[in-house]
């Protein structure tokens, strides 16, 4: 299997902006809305090319979600853009009633998620959004791992009917997936095959999992790495099959340990095929200002933390 390297770093939010532009060119039902963060969300190119299909909503996210639902009533495909914090916690009831329960084809696109937002600190570093959105019936939840995948996921969502949450981030991050790889919603991506331990990661943490795999291989441990870019619907089969082979799992996410990807994986395993699991996630606390890598280090989400978790979970197998 391929070992992953990268030659370029790019922010996943640029993948969203570029994907939205492509989706807009393909389908004139695609419309964009943004709550005063066009630059941050990289929606400027779409706005420039399709001014009549773009709505600036001002700093009023609740209204933006309702307007998007109304546009969807008439068959438009609205993509809302704001920070992940304002895409979920601030507007949860709007997501729930006007979009999820009403089954509206709205794509809630959320940047600056997680600790890697960096210096802005805990007010903006939402670590609860995966939990909030995965709990909503009818919602699809996607967390792509790099620029290419974010672009592909954005385009795939334009073709997919139903409410969806797309989570991406601020920092420049290694690009290691192919720009032309098919993106299948709900289908986990097997990146590396191995036999001793499965590492399931999502978002920025997928690259960290790949780095951890290299360290563990040096130590003679065979690691399987799965990119679980779709949190919901969950690819239960891929999880069961891989952990059935390796016998243990480490889950990695830039999210609270409560309510995130790890708990979804634990539910699948405990009800189908119980296996030891270690969680690499933020342990029920708020973040703080700092550089992305410093924060991942301090909050237990570094490559070294994944390596330690993998060694621990392998030990627990016996």
């Amino acid at each position, binding site marked *: 299997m391929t070992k992953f390297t990268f030659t370029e770093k790019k922010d996943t939010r640029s993948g969203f902006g570029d994907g939205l532009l492509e989706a807009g060119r393909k389908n004139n039902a695609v419309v964009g809305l943004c709550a005063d963060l066009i630059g941050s969300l990289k929606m400027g190119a779409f706005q420039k090319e399709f001014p009549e299909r773009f709505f600036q909503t001002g700093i009023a996210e609740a*209204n933006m979600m309702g307007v998007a639902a109304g546009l969807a009533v008439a068959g438009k495909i609205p993509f809302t853009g704001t920070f992940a914090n304002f895409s979920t916690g601030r507007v949860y009831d709007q997501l729930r009633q006007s979009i999820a329960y*009403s089954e509206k084809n709205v794509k809630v696109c959320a940047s600056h998620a997680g600790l890697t937002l960096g210096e802005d600190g805990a007010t903006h570093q939402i670590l609860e959004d995966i939990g909030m959105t995965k709990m909503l019936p009818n919602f699809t939840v996607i967390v792509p791992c790099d620029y290419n995948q974010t672009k592909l996921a954005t385009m795939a969502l334009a073709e997919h009917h139903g409410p969806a949450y797309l989570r991406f981030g601020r920092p420049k991050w290694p690009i290691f997936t192919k720009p032309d790889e098919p993106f299948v919603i709900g289908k986990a991506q097997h990146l590396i095959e191995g036999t001793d331990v499965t590492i399931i990661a999502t978002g920025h943490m997928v690259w960290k999992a790949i780095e951890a795999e290299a360290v563990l291989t040096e130590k003679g441990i065979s690691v399987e790495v799965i990119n679980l870019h779709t949190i919901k619907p969950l690819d239960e089969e891929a999880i069961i099959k891989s952990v059935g082979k390796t016998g243990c799992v480490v889950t990695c996410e830039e999210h609270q340990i409560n309510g995130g990807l790890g708990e979804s994986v634990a539910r699948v395993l405990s009800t189908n095929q119980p296996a030891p699991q270690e969680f690499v996630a933020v342990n029920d606390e708020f973040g703080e200002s700092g550089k992305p890598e410093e924060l991942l280090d301090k909050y237990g989400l570094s490559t070294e933390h994944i390596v330690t978790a993998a060694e621990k979970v392998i030990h627990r197998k016996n």
Partner: protein
Amino acid sequence: MADISKLKQIASQIRRDIVRMVHGVQSGHPGGSLGCTELFAALYFEVMDYTIPFSMEGVYEDQFFLSNGHISPVWYSTLARAGFFEVSELDTFRKLDTRLQGHPATEEGLPGIRIASGSLGQGLSVACGAALAKKMNHDHHHVFCLMGDGEQQEGQVWEAAMFAAHHKADNLIAIIDYNGQQIDGPTEDVMSLGNLVAKYESFGWHVMTCNGNNLEELIDKLYVAKSQTGSGKPVLLCMKTEMGYGVDFMQGTHKWHGIAPNDEQLADALNQLEETLGDY
């Protein structure tokens, strides 16, 4: 010209349906429903241009959004009486497996409903989106949205009010059921609304007022509202109503916001409301 006597007959039957539905399941919101009966009769039997069978997208027809979803009984009765679904289905209101949920929903596919409502403050935003979609589609029909007056206390309403004016949603006609009552008492005691007309005007809306329980005046104002669209401003009709209108012991009080009549009270109410189209 509107056939006022026919509309009054329809309104009387809708009121009978409302009290019977709420009595039948001993829950629901009769007060606001009765107060808005003239509006629903006027919209669905006179003013709005719509097609049956219902289509969710509603292109090239007028659309109605109910933001204060708790007055679902008046909407359900009106939709059934207008032919969106069988009148007999009104008997399932709020019962297990019904399409007539306590608050309006789309999940069960009830014809006539395009968005769930009940959690207050969200409908005007949705109506703004629907109005803009009509403009994008070069569809010259209108979007109506009814809100409660207590609902004006929700911040999202004012986000939407600002948005509608900024984006010139001048095919949007919002209506406020200004009955001055909310669950905990008169709006002036609970949280003063101040001068709603001046507030909306200052937000850039064209504002009109009327007596919402006077069919002739209401229909006249709704047509004027329609004629005011296309002028660059969204239109608001601030409609003074009496909660519980049409049933003397329910009228003008917040007490009947969300409680059901007992058998005796039902008989009393029905005595005051002529059966004109046949009970379900």
